[in-house]
């Protein structure tokens, strides 16, 4: 504290310097480190803020005083300011450092072929991104990203990052789909029992036609083409859609009970101190019988450590139970919805429903049991390699 305000060492010379000390006490001036140098001369430290008062006390008690040393912040600053060249140097250093750190020093391009890199480099140089320009003159990375992405069409995506003084461009290039190598010779066979709904052959020879019944493992599109004398093996490609039957059983209760939130929630705020809950707001408990609670708790963290403090918000909703009852007909409709959901759990999403038939429904114990028959259309092909020398 004394160092901040600054303090001075003074020398008091007089007939009775003790009087000076006592008078200082009366006036509330703090003295410390008093030393008796020789008879009638005392030196002491005082705060710079008290210098005026001390001068007055000295006059009153008939003592002479002079300053010996100056200590603390203000004097230090004054001394430093005398070496203004030094101070200016420090200032200049930081200014230059700041200036240089705001320049672009490096532009990195990653993940591009040489041609694309060159093109990208030309594009961004046009925008002004090159070593030696001020970062503040450039568009923001987000803007750069959108401009560059639009200009350089060969890239699928260009990410722009500023890491200190380096602009990083990460390029994901479009890969042109190369005609893939001929796969090994193969048949396409059925992966389950079905009725063929539609068949489309790209390579190979169709072995079945629409409305044929196929069993699992039957060849649908053969990889062997040509006649007996001039036979060739190819990789069969194509798609075969088959009709598959599913039967699902769904049970729907005729009565359903809902919980409905009635009113605005009552909110309690609590401060957590360890395991203690200190109420901040909200004491009244709701009166209703049915209450639904939601509790949000957050713990405060410091440097990744959990602090023993937290905040809890508890929302209490008054709820009312409602009962909804279905007619039998409605229940069947609901059952159909459920059945559809269930069926798509088992089959591919691309599959489509060709037909839907309620086979049977019965009411039992307040529940409706429904059997539903589905005709689904699905892809049924499976690859099967042709073993050489067969």
């Amino acid at each position, binding site marked *: 504290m004394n160092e901040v305000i600054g303090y001075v060492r003074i020398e008091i010379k007089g007939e009775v*310097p*003790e009087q000076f*000390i*006592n008078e200082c*006490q*009366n006036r*509330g001036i*703090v*003295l*410390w*480190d*008093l*030393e*008796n140098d020789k*008879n009638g001369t*005392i030196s*002491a430290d005082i705060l710079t803020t008290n210098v005026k008062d001390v001068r007055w006390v000295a006059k009153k008690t008939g003592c002479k005083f002079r300053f010996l040393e100056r200590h603390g912040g203000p004097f230090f600053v004054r001394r430093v300011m005398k070496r203004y060249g030094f101070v200016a140097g420090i200032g200049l250093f930081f200014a230059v450092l700041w200036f240089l750190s705001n320049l672009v020093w490096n532009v990195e391009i990653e993940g591009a072929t040489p041609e694309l890199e060159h093109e990208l480099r030309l594009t961004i140089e046009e925008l002004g991104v090159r070593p030696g320009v001020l970062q503040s003159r450039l568009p923001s990375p987000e803007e750069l990203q959108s401009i560059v992405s639009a200009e350089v069409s060969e890239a699928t995506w260009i990410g722009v990052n500023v890491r200190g003084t380096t602009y990083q461009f990460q390029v994901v290039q479009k890969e042109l789909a190369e005609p893939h190598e001929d796969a090994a010779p193969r048949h396409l066979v059925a992966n389950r029992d079905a009725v063929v709904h539609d068949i489309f052959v790209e390579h190979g020879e169709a072995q079945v036609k629409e409305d044929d019944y196929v069993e699992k493992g039957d060849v649908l599109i053969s990889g062997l083409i040509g006649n007996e004398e001039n036979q060739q093996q190819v990789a069969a490609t194509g798609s075969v859609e088959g009709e598959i039957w599913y039967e699902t059983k769904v049970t729907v209760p005729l009565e359903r009970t809902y919980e409905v939130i009635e009113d605005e929630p009552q909110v309690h705020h609590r401060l957590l101190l360890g395991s203690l809950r200190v109420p901040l707001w909200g004491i009244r408990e709701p009166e209703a019988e049915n209450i639904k609670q939601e509790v949000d708790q957050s713990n405060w963290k410091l440097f990744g450590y959990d602090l023993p403090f937290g905040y809890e918000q508890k929302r209490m909703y008054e709820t009312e139970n409602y009962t909804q009852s279905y007619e039998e007909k409605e229940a069947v409709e609901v059952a159909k919805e459920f059945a559809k959901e269930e069926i798509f759990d088992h089959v591919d999403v691309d599959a489509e429903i060709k037909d839907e038939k309620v086979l049977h429904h019965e009411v039992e114990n307040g529940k409706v049991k429904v059997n539903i028959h589905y005709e689904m259309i699905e892809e049924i092909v499976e690859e099967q390699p042709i073993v050489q020398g067969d």
Partner: protein
Amino acid sequence: MKRFRKWIEQWMGEQFDLPSDIMMDLPRVTMIGNLHIYIENHRGLVRFTNEEVILRFKGGWLYVRGSDFVIKMILPEEILIEGTIHDVVYDIND
């Protein structure tokens, strides 16, 4: 009258087990070896040299003698003296 008052003060201090420095405004002196001496309840500095410090208190003087005295701190009722202390003498005028 003065004596009577002093007698009352002393009597009360003894009866109620109160520290006498509070009851009777006496100086409380704390010494750490012969290096520091800390005096509370003084009533002013009478003399301060390298070898001697004289303090006034209610009803007398306190002499501290030794060598190399430095007053580390002085407040209206407290004083901390550093140095080599040889003797502490009370001079009480009844």
